[in-house]
């Protein structure tokens, strides 16, 4: 053993401030966002552009649509007329409404309803999940078991059953899907938050004597945001597809409200004319592909976001 030297002398040439760490170049939040955006793959960019486009159409629907949402014209199932004055670009539907206009209004209705539903489901599921993660006692037990039971019923079946009981109105639809979907949000929020709650910094805050509100707002919430944001995208596409499916089945959004799911259903009979007029067969596929394109876009963005925030790399 070497001889002990005096404690007051600092090791030669050592400085804590100069210690080389993982320290990267310092940047503001905006700069960082811009840098990761620039590095985003093509699929993510594609997704973001599509989402922006949909939002644009949904917000400006009344200015973009050539005709009214429920305006009826004399010829049902009019063919596509790509050029010409006072014509129907994508033809008309089974009772003579302009398909293009309904597609545009449909963006507003279908996306709006799905967005509202997802928000409610996050308020319920996210809030309860956070409380359960912090409480970890009887409340957590009751909520978790209740969610287990609710999740034991397939969600589409559960939704169908509840719609049968309460009837198909837009409000019922939103509440029913939001409640059913909130079970998934609860599970995720709880499991992510539980991992954060056991962190030493949360313990340190409790030891300091901080109240529950501060711990939730300042210590936990900022750290569970990235997975929750990604989940919001995934839940949105799930809710969006579920509502589209229910409307397609005729028990979701009801006429005359323009909605993509029910538009597919209304024009489905045109499919069999594919051999004679391919555009006729494409009419019901238009709203269907509008749904598909948006979900693909959301999935692409979420995929990239998850990859980026989780630090998850396939190579490791």
């Amino acid at each position, binding site marked *: 053993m070497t001889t002990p030297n005096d404690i007051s002398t600092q090791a030669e040439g050592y400085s*804590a401030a100069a210690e080389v760490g993982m320290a990267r170049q310092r940047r503001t939040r905006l700069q960082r966002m811009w840098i990761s955006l620039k590095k985003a793959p093509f699929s993510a960019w594609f997704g973001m552009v599509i989402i922006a486009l949909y939002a644009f159409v949904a917000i400006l629907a009344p200015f973009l649509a050539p005709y009214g949402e429920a305006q009826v014209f004399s010829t049902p199932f009019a063919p596509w007329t790509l050029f010409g004055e006072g014509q129907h670009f994508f033809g008309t539907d089974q009772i003579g409404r302009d398909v293009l206009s309904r597609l545009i209004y449909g963006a507003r209705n279908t996306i709006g309803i799905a967005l509202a539903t997802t928000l409610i489901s996050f308020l319920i599921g996210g809030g309860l999940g956070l409380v359960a993660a912090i409480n970890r006692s009887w409340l957590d037990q009751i909520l978790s078991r209740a969610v287990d039971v609710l999740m034991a019923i397939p969600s589409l079946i559960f939704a169908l059953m509840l719609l049968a009981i309460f009837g198909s109105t837009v409000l019922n639809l939103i509440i029913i899907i939001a409640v059913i979907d909130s079970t998934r949000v609860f599970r995720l929020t709880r499991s992510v938050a539980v991992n954060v709650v056991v962190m030493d910094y949360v313990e*340190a805050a409790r*030891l300091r004597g901080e109240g529950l509100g501060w711990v939730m707002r300042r210590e936990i919430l900022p750290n569970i945001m990235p997975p929750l944001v990604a989940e919001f995208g995934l839940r949105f596409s799930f809710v969006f597809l579920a509502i589209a499916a229910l409307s397609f089945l005729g028990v979701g959004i009801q006429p005359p409200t323009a909605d993509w799911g029910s538009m597919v259903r209304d024009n489905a009979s045109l499919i069999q004319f594919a051999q004679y007029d391919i555009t006729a067969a494409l009419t019901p596929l238009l709203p269907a592909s509008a749904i598909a394109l948006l979900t693909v876009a959301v999935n692409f963005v979420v995929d990239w976001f998850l990859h980026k925030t989780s630090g998850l790399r396939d190579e490791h």
Partner: protein
Amino acid sequence: MSTDPESRGTKGDILLEMRDIEIDGFSDERWHDIIKGVDLTLRRGEVMGLIGESGAGKSTLGKAAMGFAQPGCRIKGGTINFDGIDLRAASESQKRGLWGSRIAYVAQSAAASFNPAHRLIEQTVEATVGHDIQTEAEAKADARELYASLQLPDPDTIGDRYPHQVSGGQLQRIMTAMAMSPRPDLIIFDEPTTALDVTTQVEVLVAMRDIVDRFNTAAIYITHDLAVVAQMADFIKVLRYGEEVEQAETRKMLAEPEQDYTKSLWSVRALEKPEVKGNDIVLSIDGVDAAYGNSVKVLHDVSINIPRGRTVAVVGESGSGKSTTARVITGLLPQLKGDIVFNGEVLPKVLKDRNKDQLRRIQMIYQMADTAMNPRQTVAEIIGRPLDFYHGMTGAKRDNRIVELLEMIELDESFMDRLPSELSGGQKQRICIARALAAEPDIIICDEVTSALDQIVQEGILRLLLRLQKEFNITYLFITHDIAVVQAISDEIVVMFQGEVVEQGLKSEILSPPHPDYTQLLLSSVPEMDPDWLDRLVAERAEA
């Protein structure tokens, strides 16, 4: 051979020769250098110690010696020649023919590296049988003999168990048997004892060294612990940031290291606080019992007295109850029996019954500074919160105080708006210290605060803590398993074992004989910077 260290000198022909090795690793979406042009030569029967701190690239280099690139890494340049075979040019199947027959590997985490689905003996002989070195029956008989020579209990039947059915120390020895089974020319030991307690580590070290000696196997022993490698290796290579710092024969390296960096590797061991007795007891733990949930008790009648302005070190191995003691003091785990007396008054058992002043006066610093700071808050927010919370400081007054605190921990203003991810390990721990100081506490509980840090950084933190103690008369309750750290910082020592206090006293009393049995075992198991230490210990224990 272990009795005659001199014979571990020159050995046979060159077995492994690596020249100018360069390895890249992929992270943050790009390739980084991990190993930057390292040479390595190993002769038959030689044991090389490969030492370095975290991130030095020692494990990557060790695996590269097998011609294996870890997932996410690629060997970019250089030559690897194993007994006339060019491992960089060799095909996968050629390399597979060598792995597990002529080159074997012992991993750090035995618990994770054994397949949970198969019996231990099947895994021990898998490579030997798979490479047609021995028949299954021969290999199994040989494995049982290896188990016996590695001092494993029930050597004839232990192999019939599954990995989760035996202890960590036993698993690590079985993994050594697995490596030895095909009688390889070279074994790579990758931090094989890092996850073990010191008393278990001794047994494993003895077993590994004897068997390597017996079969005259060449080995590369990778570790960050110089005292451990001193027992195992003929010569030592020091790595830092993927480059070689120096290489020398073991005794020479210990006696006269050439580079400053090498000297710094045992800097903590050079630190020793002169002990001072204290009589003004600031906090006393009085006959405390505690348990988690309704399960078995983890603390039995624990009593500890902590004098003001002094450091009391609590030492013990995993499961000794030292961290639980800290949780009881802070009120996170209310005790079943007994009292915590702080500044003359009995503290409420439960955290939420304590008042703000009581909370302020007891602060805590954690082992992992990474998880002790909210990654979304800046340094100013982290240090500023206790100032605001306890002392009602806001605005410019608060900012000034933050700068003062940063200067106290030898950092400066420029750190104020950094996030924890932009700090080094030592800087993070310093910020945690500043956060504790901001409360102006009477006592700080330090839970293994240096054990996740590299040696030179550890030294800096320990010096800082000692200086702060001098300046502000702070009391530390210092929980650690590292005797070198205890030497460096403590006035008094408490030894704990299985939830009980074995003894408490001044540092000089505890560290000098006579010792109670457990203290004796614990202290004697701590590796010393002396290549003969293990031999001496084995001889002493054999006599006793």
